[in-house]
């Protein structure tokens, strides 16, 4: 009998400690709220490192499992079931890593209702960690929906001018997708007699045509979250209106909830349906890659540009996952991390300039390299990472995904055509286009606006938010082996399942 107090429970709910303490503060005690939130999130990160230390990457099963009966009425068998494996360990770490960085970025940006902000932020962390760790479908759904609430308030209270429109669009859109998933979850739980994901996976035996419907129901929730083309239009609005820290978390982690959902639930529960639908999903992914890149290029608002680039980058992740081979899935998981780091850093960067000039219109800048050299160099590194320059993290992810997609295009592969890889590669070029033009408009050329001449370069606190991200950007780019080591065995297991499904399904 596992005890309730295990590392995963601890890491998931530890941020609540911060929420409780902050709840007793006065609204005026802004700094206290900030420090408590920062320290609590740092301790949470520490706990997640402790989880990592105990994690055995050779073991393909769930680890550090806690599994306790929870709701057992009317034949329903719902458990409090947490566990971590190679698919989720990196995302767990990414969440606990990005949260303190985001909190640090709000130090001067959020002055209004700091106490509430920090409480919502820590609650959001609980929800996200729960999503990555829950192994019971019902529990997963609760965490999944729970993440919506704090994010809704973060956008709706601390957002920009059109914050109510964005917040409601975000909330209703994601909610609408989730309803279909809830139906599928209930169907599974009632018909298969359990809500436990490992048990459901082990049982299998869902008829192929039924799998397709269930796959689609889950996909509705996840595809909106990712977001996949053409369900992406909530994202730019949410990003533009969200405060910087909200954008970092939104891009860095909340979107990964969708891709992770595809990986964990759609691939794991419905392997036959995954094989059958892979070309369709990959097709949408490729459209997303190209479309997102094109719309990015046409933006004048730099934050919107970064937001649309997420549509493009997550297209790569989806393409990798639905290549259904080891290269593709490993590349997809790594690219989730990469996108969290690079795009997270880009949103921080945009936030820094917005705090100084209160505009994000790229035409309002130019020649900033001269004025803010440190900021310029850090931005350059992050931009290069985002466009996949070798030696930085983005390249490793994109290249592995392209390898996977190319392999899946060969005979016997899931995609059946190398055009998916070829068109996705076009996205690599387009990424270079919009990123370089963004960099050019902000940093190169003559200084055209007088008010830019007096801008201060970034301070130590701001450097401190970027440097940890940049260290990881280099680390993954130069020596990604430790990161792949964490996921390889589990992915290998999943790929074996998918391959036997492919043999059963494909002619």
């Amino acid at each position, binding site marked *: 009998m596992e005890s309730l107090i295990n590392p995963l429970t601890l890491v998931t709910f530890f941020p609540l400690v911060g929420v409780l303490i902050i709840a007793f503060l006065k609204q005026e005690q802004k700094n206290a709220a900030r420090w408590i939130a920062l320290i609590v999130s740092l301790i949470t990160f520490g706990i997640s490192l402790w989880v990592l230390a105990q994690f055995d990457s050779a073991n393909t099963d769930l680890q550090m499992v806690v599994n306790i009966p929870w709701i057992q009425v009317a034949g329903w068998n719902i458990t409090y079931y947490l566990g971590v494996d190679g698919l989720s360990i990196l995302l767990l770490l990414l969440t606990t890593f990005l949260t303190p960085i985001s909190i640090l970025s709000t130090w001067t940006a959020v002055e209004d209702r700091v106490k509430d902000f920090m409480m919502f932020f820590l609650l959001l962390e609980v929800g996200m960690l729960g999503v990555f760790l829950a192994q019971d479908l019902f529990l997963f759904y609760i965490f999944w929906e729970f993440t919506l609430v704090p994010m809704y308030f973060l956008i709706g209270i601390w957002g920009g001018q059109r914050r109510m429109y964005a917040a409601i669009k975000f909330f*209703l859109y994601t909610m609408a997708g989730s309803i279909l998933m809830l139906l599928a979850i209930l169907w599974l739980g009632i018909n298969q007699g359990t809500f436990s994901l490992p048990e459901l996976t082990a049982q299998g035996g869902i008829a192929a045509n039924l799998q397709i419907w269930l796959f689609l129901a889950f996909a509705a929730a996840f595809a909106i979250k990712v977001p996949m083309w053409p369900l*992406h239009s909530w994202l730019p609005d949410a990003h533009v209106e969200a405060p910087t820290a909200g954008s970092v978390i939104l891009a860095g982690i909340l979107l990964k909830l969708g891709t992770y959902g595809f990986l964990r639930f759609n691939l794991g529960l419905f392997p036959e349906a995954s094989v059958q639908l892979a070309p369709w999903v990959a097709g949408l992914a490729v459209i997303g890659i190209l479309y997102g890149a094109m719309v990015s290029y046409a933006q004048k608002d730099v934050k919107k540009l970064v937001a649309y680039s997420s549509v493009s980058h997550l297209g790569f992740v989806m393409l990798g996952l639905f290549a259904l081979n080891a*290269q593709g899935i490993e590349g997809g998981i790594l690219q989730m991390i990469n996108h969290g780091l690079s795009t997270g850093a880009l949103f921080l960067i945009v936030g820094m300039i917005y705090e100084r000039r209160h505009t994000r219109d790229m035409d309002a800048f130019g020649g900033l390299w001269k004025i803010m050299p440190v900021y310029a160099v850090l931005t350059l590194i992050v931009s290069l990472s985002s466009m996949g*320059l070798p*030696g930085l993290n983005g390249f490793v992810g994109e290249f592995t995904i392209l390898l996977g997609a190319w392999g899946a295009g*060969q005979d016997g592969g899931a995609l059946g055509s190398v055009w998916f890889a070829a068109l996705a590669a076009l996205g690599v*070029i387009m990424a270079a286009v919009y990123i370089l*033009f963004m960099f050019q408009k902000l940093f190169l*050329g003559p200084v055209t606006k007088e008010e830019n001449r007096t801008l201060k370069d970034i301070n130590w606190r701001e450097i401190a938010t970027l440097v940890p991200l940049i260290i990881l950007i280099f680390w993954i780019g130069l020596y990604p082996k430790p990161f792949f080591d964490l996921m390889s065995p589990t992915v290998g297991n999943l790929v074996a399942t998918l391959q036997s499904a492919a043999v059963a399904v494909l002619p």
Partner: protein
Amino acid sequence: MTIENIIWFIPLAPILAFFLIVLLTNRTKWLSHTIAILAALISAALTFYVIYDVASEGHLAEQVIISMLKWFPTGDSWFTISVLVDPLTLATLFFVSITILMIFIYSVGYHNFGAPKGDHDRPGLQPHGATLTDAHGHKHRVMSIEPMYSRFFAFFGLFAFGMYLLVTTGNLLILFVGWEIMGLCSYLLIGFWYAKPSARAAAIKAFLTTRIADVLMLLGIAYLYFATGTLNFHEIFVPEVLEQLALEPALNGFLGLSIAGLIGILIIFGTIGKSAQFPLHVWLPDAMEGPTPVSAMIHAATMVSAGVYLVIRFFPLLSAGWEGHGLTPPMTLMAFIGAFTAILSATIAIAQNDVKRVLAYSTISQLGFMIAALGIGGYVAATFHLVTHAFFKALLFLGSGSVIHGVEHGVFHTGEHLDPQDMYNMGGLRRKMPITFWTFLIGGFALAGFPILTAGFWSKDEILAEAYFHSHWPIFITLAVAALITAFYTMRQITLTFLGEPRTKAADHAHESHWTMTLPLVILAVFSLAVGWLGIPEEFPLLGGLLPNLAHEVGGALPEPPEAIPFSVWPLLTSLVVSLGGLTLGWLVYRNVKAGQPDPLAKPLGPLWTVLKNKYYFDELYDFLFIRPAHWMAEDFAIWMDENVIDGILHGIASIGPALGSFFRNYIDKPIVNGFGDWIADTTRKIGVGLRVIQTGRVQQYMVMALVSLVAFGIIFYLLLVQ
């Protein structure tokens, strides 16, 4: 320490220099250039040690391979980082290390080290000069030091690292890493004066154009990996693997190519971008926006040479299935693209007046020679020309930089406003800048293939001999004509720049550059002559066999080293005629050009001259064909789609809610639900109103009604029950 370990240090020195300068010495100018030059010196010294060691043990043709680090996994195998040394590596390292060292030293003088800070100089712009006041109170303008001096040397360190990495690695993926690092450096260095809009545009153009090619190459890499399961050269370039790749059709017979054919073509695209071949040649001339040492670095020592190095390295794959006759599809493509580019850009070079642009087009053209040579199977000839070209092109670029410097000096002196790069503003510089003149002459003659003495003669002759021997007549004729034009525009350049009389006052006041600039010129000039003597065919009349033919040793890098082609007098005669003829013609046409006079060819060529002057309008064509439609797609179509169609549908769905609500309200709620309720209430009320008539309050009337009711009930009761 073994040779294997030493190789690792060759790329390491410049990257260390990069980090040292960026992190520690970026404010101390002399220290920054000392570190950079020291790093280049170490790399060169190590290179020569390796060459010496390998040569003295006499196993030049053997491969030395070391695999070291597992880099990252791909499913069940690993990418490894390795080094590989074979004759091709050594030949490439040889010219790379020398040219890089020379360019580094030259940059010290080029950026006016020791000169005062400029009066109004800003980072991101070219130095504009400083005003000095001498002992007599006279003010005069002098050149000023580059404001971003240290940054320049840091970028150069990174650039050199990329090239060394690319050359020493034994793995295609690491090669690609070096390849992209150079792409980044070219972006940073072409746009070094980033506040200049033209430099900024050129930087982006260079990066994006090469990136298009890189992505195609990346697909080739992915395919190669899936076809062979490895990206290590020593595992791919083995006869059995190659044979297999050449036999199997690609992707269910895509275009009728074999796997080797399709991969080969994708890889050649990488070279077309990096080595600026048609149709992706447009970025290289614009790359002249960078400081001149950058041009030398890109054009000779590193980037474009890397492109040619790639196809030479991949020759075993590109030629897989080639039995010595009937070219493979990748080879045909190379032969065509190379020869076409060679003549295309040679003709453009005739009509350019910018001293650096002429050289830029000559680079494109010479690279075309190499690629065409490789396309017809001239492995040794291509490599040989790559080596000699690197020396004389580095020399020419540095020489042109020295010329520009000299003229700029004159401009400061006279205060004229003129373009110091326009050859029509020069003339007569041979007397003012003798060292620059003589070394430039050597470089120019090498480019033109001046017989016997210069390196360019031997390597170009080798290419023509290959085409002749294998009877590739279209290639032979095209390249011969291109060689003639090359000699012609080279002499045009030399004549306009150095010969005759000065055409401006600035040219009259030019003076010789600092020794840090002229010393590299002299050293490179020596190599531009002597390197050719290492590749004299054994059967050449009189000279053959006097010196060992080292160039031919490069063939040892192939699984099956090629035989030397037999000597023939016809290609030799052709070489002699085109180079001497072109040089003479150029001198005859341009020797008497006076100030203000139009180009002597402008009139006789008429509209053709305009076309050449405008580079066949490629930039305009691409703008029309690709750039505008892409803008339209992104800025009009995609945005419209997003805002109107996708969000439109969404808002449509969102408004279904309220619409449905009002439907229920107006058609169900109001008429039916409300209506029913109202009807009941209404009817009740009406009944009430109707009944009210009988509620009079009079007792007598009630009694009557009670009686009537009683009677009525009694009758009904009787009828229903009793009956």
